[in-house]
């Protein structure tokens, strides 16, 4: 690991990973290398137990009673696609926020061409969706409300519990895109009244890429959901039809068991360090970033600018310098790794007025050090001074 690098791109993928994650993946491939759920011999069962353990601990972490209602996917995008294509039919109405990522927008735009009706609840300049807007858009044909729990552009945390309550009142299903919040904010789907939670394993949960999943709450009619993939499950092999039961209905083909071993270790790391403690450290660094950047000339800061209302994601621009140049120079001259541009979220940038150029995004993680935040502020100050 190059310790001179300052990695502030945890919203894209967390790095570094805890050593326990690396160790768990190495041990898995060395010791439990069977195909989970296929053969029934001891190495197959050892692999199956790791996959099940990850399923059970993640279900428990998110407040889902029945671990078998947690379906593993390759990433949060696949989980969102499974939910949207699984549930929505021509004539259905969907409400999304105007801060959605393309993981939601692109399937929705495609479904729109198939006859699904879309409404977007507008968000303020801070990225916050108003509850009144969502309520106004709800109608009897509304099948689903989908909301990005926290924006990957501004970090804005949406009022999930309130939207969840609204959806129950109107008997509408509620899908939450937890790409930026799983492992960062506490999420209990019972308490927040979330019906479908899509998460990724490689960001806040500190696991490897290639892991994610969809939680199917009790109100979700999974038997009616269309499938993205069919194939071998290791179960009901005598039938050439896909099994109906969970999780096999949605989990065809050999799963990413090595990745899930790593994800389990990432989750255990978070549990052992307590989410609250990690959040406290990230919040204080976020506050320092917000204050530091706000004080610099030529800097425009986007989002709530309030650490209690955002996950550790900050977006800024410098008047007079292209965001691509800022990103390149931070990397080349200072070893600071960030993400310039649209961050796969054109809708969010339209909301913020930063389309099509985008912003520079800084996203600290659990391993970011206070002195690294100071180095970033010094570097941006130097860039900003060139423009005076």
């Amino acid at each position: 690991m190059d310790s001179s690098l300052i990695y502030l791109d945890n919203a894209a993928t967390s790095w570094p990973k805890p050593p326990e994650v690396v160790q768990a993946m190495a041990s898995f491939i060395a010791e439990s290398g069977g195909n989970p759920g296929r053969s029934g011999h001891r190495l197959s069962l050892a692999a199956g137990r790791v996959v099940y353990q990850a399923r059970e601990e993640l279900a428990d972490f998110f407040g889902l009673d029945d671990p078998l209602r947690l379906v593993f996917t390759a990433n949060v995008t696949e989980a969102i696609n499974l939910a949207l294509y699984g549930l929505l039919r021509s004539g259905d109405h969907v409400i999304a926020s105007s801060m959605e990522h393309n993981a939601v927008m692109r399937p929705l735009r495609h479904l729109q061409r198939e006859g699904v009706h879309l409404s977007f609840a507008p968000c303020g300049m801070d990225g916050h969706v108003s509850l009144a807007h969502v309520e106004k858009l709800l109608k009897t044909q509304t099948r689903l409300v989908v909301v990005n729990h926290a924006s990957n552009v501004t970090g804005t945390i949406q009022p999930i519990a309130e939207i969840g309550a609204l959806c129950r009142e109107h008997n509408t299903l509620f899908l939450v895109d937890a790409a930026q919040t799983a492992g960062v904010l506490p999420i209990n789907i019972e308490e927040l009244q979330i019906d479908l939670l899509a998460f990724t394993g490689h960001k806040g949960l500190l696991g490897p890429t290639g892991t994610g999943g969809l939680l199917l709450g009790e109100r979700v009619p999974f038997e009616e959901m269309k499938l993205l993939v069919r194939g071998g499950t290791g179960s009901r092999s005598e039938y050439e039809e896909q099994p109906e039961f969970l999780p096999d209905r949605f989990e065809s083909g050999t799963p990413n068991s090595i990745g899930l071993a790593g994800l389990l270790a990432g989750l255990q790391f978070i549990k052992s360090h307590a989410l609250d403690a990690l959040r406290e450290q990230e919040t204080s660094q976020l506050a320092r970033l917000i204050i530091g950047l706000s004080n610099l000339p030529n800097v425009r800061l986007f989002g709530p600018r309030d650490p209690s209302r955002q996950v550790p994601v900050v977006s800024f621009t410098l008047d007079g310098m292209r965001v691509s140049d800022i990103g390149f120079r931070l990397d080349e001259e200072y070893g600071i790794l960030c993400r310039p541009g649209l961050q796969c979220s054109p809708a969010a940038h339209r909301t913020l007025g930063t389309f099509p150029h985008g912003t520079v995004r800084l996203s600290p993680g659990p391993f970011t050090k206070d002195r690294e935040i100071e180095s970033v502020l010094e570097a941006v100050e130097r860039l900003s001074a060139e423009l005076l």
Partner: protein
Amino acid sequence: MSQYGVVLFSGTQAALRAEKLLERVGQVVKLIPTPRHLSSDCGVALRFSWAEQNEVVNTLDRARLAYETIAILDG
């Protein structure tokens, strides 16, 4: 020699869930290849001591974990 019973589940992840639930309440269980005379499924089944049948069923019911078949295992 004590007699064994066997529980068949819809899939392997359900069988693994049962294994954990039962081990947590102190049952001695083992996952074995599904006996071919009970099902042509190529997955695993959960073997338990037949004397513990009530406790096994109650534990699975409490967790609302559905199973396909429960049977006495010969030999």
